[in-house]
């Protein structure tokens, strides 16, 4: 009888959605990691995570402005969940990668996980991210919805793990409208504790 009650409860419960507020000017750890940032305006943290150590923030919905954090992706791990491991396995991050390998890792991951047909790396330059030598790169792509999107990523490999923040938005209006807020977030990034995992 208990079994039936449990099944009834599971079936009748409505789907749980929870988008959390990320308040401005408050340091917050992201992507279940020691990567900490302080936004200069309020954001929404979406419940759905693109991958194991990742997290997405948005202002108007992930289709219109998407800030994603990858918090310490470990050696031999993928950025996203596998969609078809047997036929189209996702590329894996390796600790021996150089910062200049990161754009290709992101591109090849997008082609599989997000069905991106056209992806262009527009620029790349060395920067410091989270207090470590890293890379800033810009890119554009067209996904399943035929919408041109622009993106900017700030990333670094710290103690053999990948830390990255990306911002993506439709090239029309939304990218220009949100890029300054993203750059503020990226500039505030730092490792809050020594990079050590439990």
């Amino acid at each position, binding site marked *: 009888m208990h*079994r*039936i009650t449990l*099944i*009834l409860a599971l*079936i*009748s419960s*409505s789907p749980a*959605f929870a*988008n*959390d*507020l990320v308040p401005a000017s408050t340091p917050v750890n992201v992507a279940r990691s020691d990567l900490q940032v302080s936004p200069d305006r*309020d*954001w*929404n943290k979406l419940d759905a995570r693109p991958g194991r150590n990742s997290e997405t923030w*948005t*202002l*108007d*919905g992930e*289709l*219109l402005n998407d800030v994603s954090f990858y918090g310490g992706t470990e050696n031999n791990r993928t950025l996203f969940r596998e969609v078809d491991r047997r036929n189209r396995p996702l590329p894996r991050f390796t600790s021996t990668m150089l910062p200049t390998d990161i754009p290709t890792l992101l591109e090849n991951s997008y082609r599989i996980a997000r069905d991106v047909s056209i992806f262009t790396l527009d620029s790349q330059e060395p920067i410091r991210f989270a207090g470590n030598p890293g890379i800033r790169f810009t890119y554009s792509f067209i996904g399943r*919805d*035929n*919408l*041109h999107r622009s993106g900017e990523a700030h990333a670094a490999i710290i103690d053999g793990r990948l830390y990255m923040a990306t911002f993506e938005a*439709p*090239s*029309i*209006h*939304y990218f220009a*409208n949100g890029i300054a807020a993203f750059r503020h977030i990226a500039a505030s990034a730092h490792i809050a504790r020594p990079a050590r995992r439990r």
Partner: protein
Amino acid sequence: MIRRSRLLAVLVFISSVFIVALPSLTHAQERTAVRQGFSFPNDGSARILVFRPDVTVGAQSTGGLFEPRADWTEQARGHIGTALDQALPTLNAQIVRIQEPIGSDAQLLRDYSALFGAVSQSIINYQFFVGNRLETKKRDNRENVFEWTLGEGVRTLPGADQADYALFITTEDHYGSTGRKLLQIFAAAAVGVGVTSGLHAGYAGLVDLQTGNLVWINADFAMGGDVREADGAVRRVSQLLEDFPGTLPISGERGGAAQ
């Protein structure tokens, strides 16, 4: 054994209840909104630029993958175009049509049409679906503020200099294959899991051509009417233009057409 069959019977009953109940829950959701402070000119003077609807039709495989069908899309495009031509005179406005743009203008229109689709989906997911509203927009939502935009760049759209508003229409239909429908029934009856079959999304939006703001929208992931048939397309267009702010009463005067 008796316990198992009882359990199965309970599951089948619950599943059938859910299959019947789900469509009504979907329709209970809000699907129209008007920007705060917007009032449509009631003297028929508003000029509305109407673009060719963005129509996509295909099949949904058993696994849920979308397979575009060029023949269905072509049929639907024709039927929706005809239905829209019949419906436009009921709008209390001057309708502006332009020649089908080519080259960079055509690309610009495709880009804005895709953006309109993304904005519409965001409105359904985060404004119309009350349980999923974004924290930063909750106060706006409580006060009935509807603020979504395509940006001021709409001024560069072909024909924008001849009109006050642009009407964007997008439909996307995924018709569930026989395999998908069987999977839906099996999953509901045997496991009690809800598997959707098909998608019939439709968005119609009126955009201010000076600001890019959406002043009215009607959007839903569960529209009616089989767009592959003439009657179905008439029903779909009628649903898309439902609650349009400048619709004439049946006996009212009709706005002229500007070319």
